[in-house]
């Protein structure tokens, strides 16, 4: 496939994007909305967007992603989409009976300038039901921006403070991660004895079990009353600056709940930081169980360090994931040679470069708003030992004969990943397992007969 990447000196393209490492805002907004219990995400635009987002989510999670569309055609595009949205709200409550509709805009409704707050106010909303919204024009940011915007929408519409002293409970904004990751973060916090409210929470929604009956709204997702009560919590942990920080800031302004920004808890350092934030915030001790888990990770790192120490790695994906992952790879003694995200944000390059500098790693290339074409050109100039990123990386992996560890979104050619965490200490073990074993499989495959060994 990559015979089309021009050979010769590196000269990355200056216009447009070739082979994106991102997609557009509404997908992230749809995913965030699916993390509210009983919510039907609604795409305010033409049908294609909604179909594409549902398809992309379905492919990654291997679960149905339900969402409705305003079904714009030329009329709505010329005269405005207010009529379509009002009709949609009425129909959605009548046909699909959700507790809440989370509307996100698309390029089209943004360009024609539909005023969502006004349209929602003028709509018929049944007693006890909610309609919230987020502005998610696709010509700005990426799916991560859209996820963040819907998180902001959820806080703005639903979180409330009753003014009393804050409860001994923790809010967690998990960032754009798999349900398996959200479950792992919840487990750690529960292990520390702190009640928590996580939203969005796609556990038991996008990794829903197959039980006796099928429910259009699975049992998972953050309950609206819990989201409302998050305004009464003592502390918010915002995991991932790109996907969670702004929502936490709004909650702080609106309800006075202090928000602590953290990295996604991927890797030992970031998981430590999560646990310490809970410890400091609530004055609890770190339980022995977590100490044991951490010890197992360190023990495993020692058992395996010679497999990956000094190996070069190219990492691509969403900024919050890539930042945390890069930190962990440095901890493992690996050399992040190329680090790239499709999402914009100047801080990305600064944060990664600082990490590399601190570790004394020189000669790496870092880029925000890059694409896989850029990455491939870099790799063609100087290859790496390992590639880490989503399924689209498989073509570079094949063309350049580099092993690939799949992590991030979307992963469309492997199963089980949405249920398995890369966060927390268990996530550390899983990542070490994937990285080590991938490199060892490679070594076995390449070994000459006389070098083929039972013990590695």
């Amino acid at each position, binding site marked *: 496939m990559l015979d089309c990447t021009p050979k010769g000196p590196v000269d990355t393209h200056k*216009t447009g994007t070739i082979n994106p490492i991102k997609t557009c805002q509404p997908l992230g907004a749809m995913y965030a909305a699916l993390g509210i219990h009983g919510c039907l995400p609604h795409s305010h*635009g033409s049908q294609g967007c909604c179909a594409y987002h549902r398809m992309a989510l379905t492919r990654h999670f291997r679960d149905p992603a339900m969402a409705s569309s305003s079904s714009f055609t030329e009329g709505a595009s010329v005269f405005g989409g207010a009529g379509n949205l009002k009709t949609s709200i009425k129909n959605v409550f009548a046909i*699909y*009976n959700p507790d809440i509709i989370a509307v996100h805009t698309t*390029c089209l409704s943004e360009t024609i300038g539909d005023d969502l707050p006004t349209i929602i106010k003028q709509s018929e909303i049944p007693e006890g039901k909610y309609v919230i919204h987020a502005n998610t024009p*696709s010509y700005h940011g990426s799916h991560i921006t859209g996820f963040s915007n819907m998180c902001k929408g959820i806080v703005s519409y639903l979180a409330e403070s009753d003014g009393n002293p804050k409860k001994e409970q923790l809010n967690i904004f998990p960032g754009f991660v798999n349900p398996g990751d959200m479950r792992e973060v919840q487990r750690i916090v529960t292990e520390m004895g702190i009640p928590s409210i996580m939203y969005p929470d796609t556990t038991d929604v996008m990794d829903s079990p*197959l039980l006796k*009956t*099928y429910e259009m709204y699975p049992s998972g997702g953050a309950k609206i009353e819990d989201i409302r009560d998050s305004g009464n919590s003592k502390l918010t942990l915002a995991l991932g600056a790109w996907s969670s920080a702004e929502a936490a800031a709004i909650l702080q302004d609106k309800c006075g709940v202090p928000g602590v920004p953290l990295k996604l808890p991927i890797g030992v350092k970031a998981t430590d930081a999560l646990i310490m934030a809970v410890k400091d915030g609530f004055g609890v001790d770190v339980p022995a169980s977590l100490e044991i888990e951490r010890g197992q990770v360190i023990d495993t790192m020692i058992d395996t360090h010679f497999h990956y120490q000094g190996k070069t790695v190219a990492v691509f994906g969403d900024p919050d994931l890539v930042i945390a992952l890069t930190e962990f790879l440095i901890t493992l003694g690996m050399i992040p040679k190329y680090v790239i995200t499709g999402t914009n944000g100047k801080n990305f390059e600064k944060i990664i470069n600082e990490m590399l500098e601190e570790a004394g790693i020189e000669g790496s290339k870092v880029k925000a708003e890059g694409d896989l074409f850029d990455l491939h050109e870099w790799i063609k100039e100087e290859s790496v030992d390992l590639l880490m990123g989503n399924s689209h990386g498989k073509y570079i992996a094949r063309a350049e004969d580099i092993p690939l560890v799949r992590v991030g979104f979307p992963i469309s050619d492997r199963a089980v990943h949405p249920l398995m965490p890369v966060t927390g200490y268990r996530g550390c073990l899983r990542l070490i397992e994937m990285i080590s074993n991938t490199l060892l499989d490679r070594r076995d495959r390449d070994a000459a007969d006389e070098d083929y060994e039972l013990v590695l």
Partner: protein
Amino acid sequence: MENTCSQTPEQDALITERQHSIVTTGNTKTSINCTDDSLAGSVSQRACVFCGARVVLNPVTDAVHLVHGPIGCAAYTYDIRGSLSSGSEMYRRSFSTDMKEKDVIFGGEKKLAACLAELAEKHHPPAIFVYSTCVSGMIGDDIVAVCKEASLTYDIDVIPVESSGFISGNKIVGYRAAGEALLRLITPKEGEVIEKTRKLNFLGEYNLGGEKWVVERYLREIGIEINVAFTGDSTVKALKKAPGSCLNIVQCTGSMHWVANQMYEAFGIPYLDVNFFGAENTAESLRKIAAFYDDPEISARTEALIEREMQAVKDVNEKYRKSLEGKRAAIYVGGAFKAFAIIRQLTELGMEIVLTGTQTGKKTEYERMGSLLNEGTVIIDDANPAEIEKFLIEKKVDVMAGGVKERFLAYKLGVGFIDHNHDRKDGLIGFEGAIRFTKEVYATTCSPVWKYVRHEYGETDQ
């Protein structure tokens, strides 16, 4: 599994509001409502005009396909179709102008022109297709003018595809936009003469899982060459020779009938409808083509091929028929052409079709569909998941054929599933495809996994 529907009586009532889009063969007098826009607020399985254009054109392998819009439209169509190539892989790359806010405000023409310049100079493709999207259409970018200028400057075909998503709620409009782009590409320049040949063009064939190559092999065996397919495994150069064919065979009628008609008008090329899905359909189609050539040698070779291949299909079907006979099947696909083929194949296996539907079927097609089915079969136009769920449960469906958005819904309801759309990796065409289809239907319908779904915790027996 005790299949309880997640719907309330009110929802049932609302489904009856769509009653004219849902008919039951034998006892509904009114004909079906279709080709309408979807209800605002429905969870439609339909896509958009851009999607229609993109799927038709994308298999042109050596062209650059540049999506002029914000990143999403290109990202969602980045290498998702499974059309295989015997040469260039250029078409599997995702090129986007990646419009930003300032492009939306000040217009995206400059950015498009800059992208075209860079792509033409660095990648030297023989053609660039430029797809308009909702935003570039809405702000009124004149992609026709930008393409024309780039075409003259770089001396390659730069072809606008007017595929703004909002033009219609039906992707058939996108098929037309793609058809127009193809005609523009293949129409000879003034003074250019395309040599007439005895080869045929294969329209509406996208080489999913190498399907074009299977038919190509059959045709070669009987003595007929394919000139070019529209558009599976095609190149710009090959497409330009299309006017030299003596016959067009049309498989996906939804996307290519219009093109076939235009080619008849412009170049005098007659066309035949064919359908290579299912053994019977394949045999019929080969006979039709052979009859067109009216050559006893071709006919003799055709009959020999059919006899040999039908025996192989028969042997396999007989083996699996025992397990599949009487099982209940549902079909929900993009177009009617595919539905016809699947109905026939499943019926040949002794299965009962209890539900069928499409996203884009036409009235006449639904009428024909009704005539192929037993009384009491539900037919739905533009179904939404709530309806699919309701009927899968009500009709106690064992296996469903559909696309990616239906797959996991079926699984959640304990129903086997066979993809007949974008997520396919192995071709279903021709005799060998029919065999593969039978094996896949068997594998999913009779998988041991369903035992665990349909039983109480701890129970293991049937």
